């Protein structure tokens, strides 16, 4: 890890949010729906970061929000990765019509705005965390699938695949030994990028009022709730925004670090 400041910073930033979420599972300063704090109390005193316009403790809300952000991020990335990588591998190896059909389906899905997809899902179900994960994960799977397909095609065109085949390596072995190891570093980096984007997407959904309401609200919803009082109590809007940035930047730095570890041509010998 020495000599990799970006990776270390990524660990610290992402770890901070992870710690907040973990602690929120066992301990919170106040009950999330406790409104006894007085409206818009300033930071300090009984409330480290003050309270919101209904008197709920801001730190409590932020900790719950961290849990929600990670749930959405990890949940939709899992969904998007499983669907997307499977479809991408299929399209990558398929020839002719199956590849064409899958590619066309992906293009349509990608052209479909995530927000519109999310609204449809929310309309069909309800404004809940599950709906957000479903909508964001579906939208993500199309992007992941297209990337996976391109990566597979590119690796398959390489001489070392032909070389492996000339030595009598069977297709399944070629996939396990050469194709997957050569695509996963890029995929991993992209998936972590997607994790950050998923958290942001959920924040936008919530900001539009499509996410679950307080007391168990995401950072996006907190931002929306605080926007009316941004001049009198700026911390209510600034704090969730800062945490969003911390998580997204942290995850991206981590992703770069992982790629460096996985790719020997990037690993500088020292």
């Amino acid at each position, binding site marked *: 890890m020495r000599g990799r400041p970006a990776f270390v910073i990524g660990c610290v930033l992402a770890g901070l949010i992870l710690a907040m979420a973990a602690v929120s599972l066992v301990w919170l300063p106040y009950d999330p729906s406790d409104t006894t704090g007085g409206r818009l109390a300033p930071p300090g005193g009984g409330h480290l970061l003050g309270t919101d316009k209904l008197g709920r403790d801001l730190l409590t809300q932020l900790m719950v929000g961290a849990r929600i952000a990670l749930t959405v991020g990890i949940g939709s990335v899992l969904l998007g990765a499983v669907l997307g990588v499977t479809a991408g591998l299929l399209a990558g190896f398929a*020839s002719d019509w199956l590849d064409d059909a899958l590619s066309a389906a992906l293009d349509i899905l990608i052209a479909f705005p995530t927000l519109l997809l999310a609204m449809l899902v929310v309309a069909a179900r309800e404004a809940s965390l599950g709906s957000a994960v479903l909508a964001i994960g579906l939208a993500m799977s199309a992007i992941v699938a297209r990337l996976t397909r391109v990566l597979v095609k590119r690796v398959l065109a*390489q*001489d*070392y695949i*032909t*070389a*492996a*085949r*000339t*030595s*009598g*390596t*069977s*297709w399944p072995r070629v996939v396990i*030994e*050469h194709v997957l*190891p*050569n695509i996963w570093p890029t995929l991993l980096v992209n998936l972590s990028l997607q994790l950050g984007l998923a958290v942001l997407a959920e924040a936008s959904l919530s900001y539009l009022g499509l996410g679950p309401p307080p007391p168990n609200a995401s950072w996006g919803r907190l931002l929306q709730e605080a926007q009316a009082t941004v001049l009198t109590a700026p911390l209510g809007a600034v704090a969730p925004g800062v945490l969003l940035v911390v998580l997204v930047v942290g995850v991206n730095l981590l992703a770069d670090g992982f790629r460096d570890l*996985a*790719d*020997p*041509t990037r690993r500088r010998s020292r």
Partner: protein
Amino acid sequence: MTLLDVAGLSVRRADGRDLVRDLSFTLGPGERLGLIGESGSGKSLTALAVMGLLPAGMTAHGSVRLAGTQVVGARDKELDRVRGRTVGVVFQEPLTALDPLMRVGRQIAGPLGRRRGLRGAPLRAAVAAALDEVRLPESLARAYPHEISGGQRQRVAIAMALACEPEVLIADEPTTALDVTVQAEVLSLLDRLVAERDMALLFISHDLAVVADVADRVIVLKDGSGVESGRTRDIVREPRHPYTRALVDSARALEGALDRLAP
């Protein structure tokens, strides 16, 4: 006995155009055949067709028999038994022919382990022996392809191709990407290994001087068709086809230029 019997081989693109047209040749144990032609004449496609590994969209027609097994139209499963064991290939570009993310030793161990059923310490010893045979130190097994030189990479590729002790070796411009001194080293290495194991060699090149050095017989390929074939010596002395004559003349001109500089 013929190890490789190619008869009336054509390689057809999806649009119906023939990239290789009606090519025939045979190769027996210990024989060395050169396949010479300009860039794009279909040399690599011929090699791939022999392995049954044409790019998607291309089809082979005619007959290719590898140690008795018909390759044209055969299923992958049957061919996997022939590939590596009967025939090995060394490619033109040594950097791209090795998996960038896999240590050199593991790449050699792959075919070795599968074909000979070795694991653990015996496998490591076999990898070391394979490296030694291409004159590379055992320590190289731990290196990644980008950490070694072009000549070393091509030696690794040769070790991989020979790992399963094939009876036929196809070398597709194995020295084109290397500088001249390394080229000579790799050629003499190939020469020695092929002689030691009494392998049949199909040597592909666009360089007449190199082919003349390595091959006993030669086929001249132009735009996918064999325009002339015969003993290398005869063809260099008395080229009949205009294209062959041009090849010989340009090779001579180069030699003449050198001779004038250093009489």
